[in-house]
């Protein structure tokens, strides 16, 4: 049985404020979390929630005020552990005097690969992220999206067991986003553990086995996207077309978009509503369940956090 790939215990980060450092800003508060081996874990939250702080703490780019973390069973202070980890920083920036092939070769040299192996891997990675034709162009001429692809390539170049990506979809066009999604799914197929932070909830819903929602430096929920939100059906939605005006009482409750109407009714009222629409000559296109989405769950948490923050501010005054 394999243990968790990433274990985070009571991890906190405070930043001193002011010239004398008398005040402190808490960026992350007592984070406890695990990412299981082989899963795709999404770390979602609004800007400034603590997602990048957590990832930087895991990468030892910053140091925790309290708490600890382990990756693949080793403490994060163990530098050799980085042989098994791939990391994509948020808005990555690389040596702009190097070409994509040179920058990948440079990073590969830290992994004790032979020259032939390095060359082979660099070529494969450039192909994988769609930069094969731009391999000899200096990075100073790259677009933001192209740099993101270089970042992704350097993160997976050494075939790591755990891949940590900070906002991997940021700056990418729809095609690029699709390609990154495919790469993440491919990594999952290969049995890698992937943890990524994102603002884009649809990506998290689509890709993740589990998500962690972080707001205001605190973890507010962890679980499969479906179990985090209330799975109970909130009602039924009927999509229909109705020629001309009709005397259907339900019509006043429906929303009209072009020729089509969208009507939401309680589950127990569904058949009565369909009957009523049929007798009025409506053409029913679809009937679907209405469930809370991850986005609604997320927005509720963010709004609750903002309300709490303003309450603290008012009481502080």
């Amino acid at each position, binding site marked *: 049985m394999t243990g968790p790939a990433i274990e985070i215990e009571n991890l906190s980060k405070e930043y001193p404020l002011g010239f004398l450092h008398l005040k402190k800003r808490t960026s992350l508060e007592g984070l406890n979390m695990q990412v299981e081996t082989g899963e795709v874990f999404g770390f979602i939250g609004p800007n400034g929630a603590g997602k990048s702080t957590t990832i*930087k703490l895991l*990468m*030892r*780019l*910053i*140091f925790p005020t309290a708490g600890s973390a382990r990756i693949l069973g080793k403490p994060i202070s163990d*530098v*050799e*552990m*980085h*042989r098994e*980890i*791939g*990391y*994509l*920083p948020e*808005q*990555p*920036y*690389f*040596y702009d*005097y*190097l070409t994509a092939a040179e920058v990948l070769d*440079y*990073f590969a*040299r*830290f*992994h004790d690969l032979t020259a032939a192996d390095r060359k082979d891997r660099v070529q494969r990675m450039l192909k994988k992220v769609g930069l094969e034709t731009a391999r000899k162009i200096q990075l100073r001429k790259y677009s933001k999206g192209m740099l993101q692809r270089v*970042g992704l390539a*350097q*993160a997976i170049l050494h075939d790591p067991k755990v891949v940590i990506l900070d906002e991997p979809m940021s700056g990418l066009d729809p095609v690029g986003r699709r390609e990154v999604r495919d790469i993440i799914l491919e990594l999952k197929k290969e049995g890698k553990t992937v943890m990524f932070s994102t603002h884009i909830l649809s990506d998290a819903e689509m890709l993740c086995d589990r998500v962690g929602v972080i707001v205001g430096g605190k973890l507010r929920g962890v679980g499969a996207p479906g179990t985090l939100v209330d799975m109970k059906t909130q009602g039924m939605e009927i999509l229909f077309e109705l020629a001309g005006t009709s005397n259907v009482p339900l019509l006043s409750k429906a929303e009209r978009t072009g020729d089509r109407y969208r009507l939401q009714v309680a589950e127990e009222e569904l058949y009565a509503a369909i009957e009523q629409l049929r007798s009025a000559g409506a053409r029913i296109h679809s009937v679907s369940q209405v469930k809370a989405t991850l986005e609604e769950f997320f927005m509720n948490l963010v709004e609750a956090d903002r309300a709490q923050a303003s309450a603290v501010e008012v009481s502080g005054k």
Partner: protein
Amino acid sequence: MRRAGVVALNTFREAVRDRVLYNLVFFALLMMAAAVAVGQISIGIEETVIVSLGLSAISVIGLLISIFIGVALVSKEMDKRTLYALLAKPVRRWEFVLGKFGGLVLTLAVNTAAMALGLLLVMLYVKHSLERGDTAVLVAVYFIWLKLALVVALALMFSCFTTPLLAILFTVGLYIVGLYVQELRNLPVEVMSPAMAAFTKWLSYLLPNFENFNVMAMAAHQRAVPRALILQNTLYTVIYCAIVLTAAAAVFSKRNLK
């Protein structure tokens, strides 16, 4: 150590691609102008003028590179966040610091060697031959390179805990103070209080002594530089750089990146 070497070679490549070695063109033009002018304005002391001017130019150009690029070695990587992806690799922070130092010292070695070659060519042009005594010029160039390595270590250390501007000011300040360490040691301690005398003595040994690296007068007059001084300066630079770089690595290892 191998990983520090990888960082060093990349730092050297950065310097080359950022056209740091273009200063050699300026040096070449200066030396050509000097070679032409010296024959007309200084009868009999052409060699002295050429050697003094050449060594001064090597020193000043090297100092500018050491201070400004030395300070930017770490701070630029932090500002541009190029460090993030690198430190996520199996690289210790001290290996990064050592690699950056090694890369710039290597750049300075190539740069200083190229300027030294230029100086020798101009000497050959002016004197029509080189003599055994001229090897003092090479020793003087070696001492300049040692001095520059020490300046790079100091600039790098300051940049690990303060802003680039302050790091430049501290490095320049320490360099100027370091030129007068001997004067500090020669202060009349008998008129001072014992505590002040002890402090002055302690300070004069703590501060980097840049005065010992200046053998320009010996080189200009073809006087041999004592072997003991060559050994002493080499050991002094190695030990002082090791101490300063250890301090830099210790500070940088605890530093939170942005």
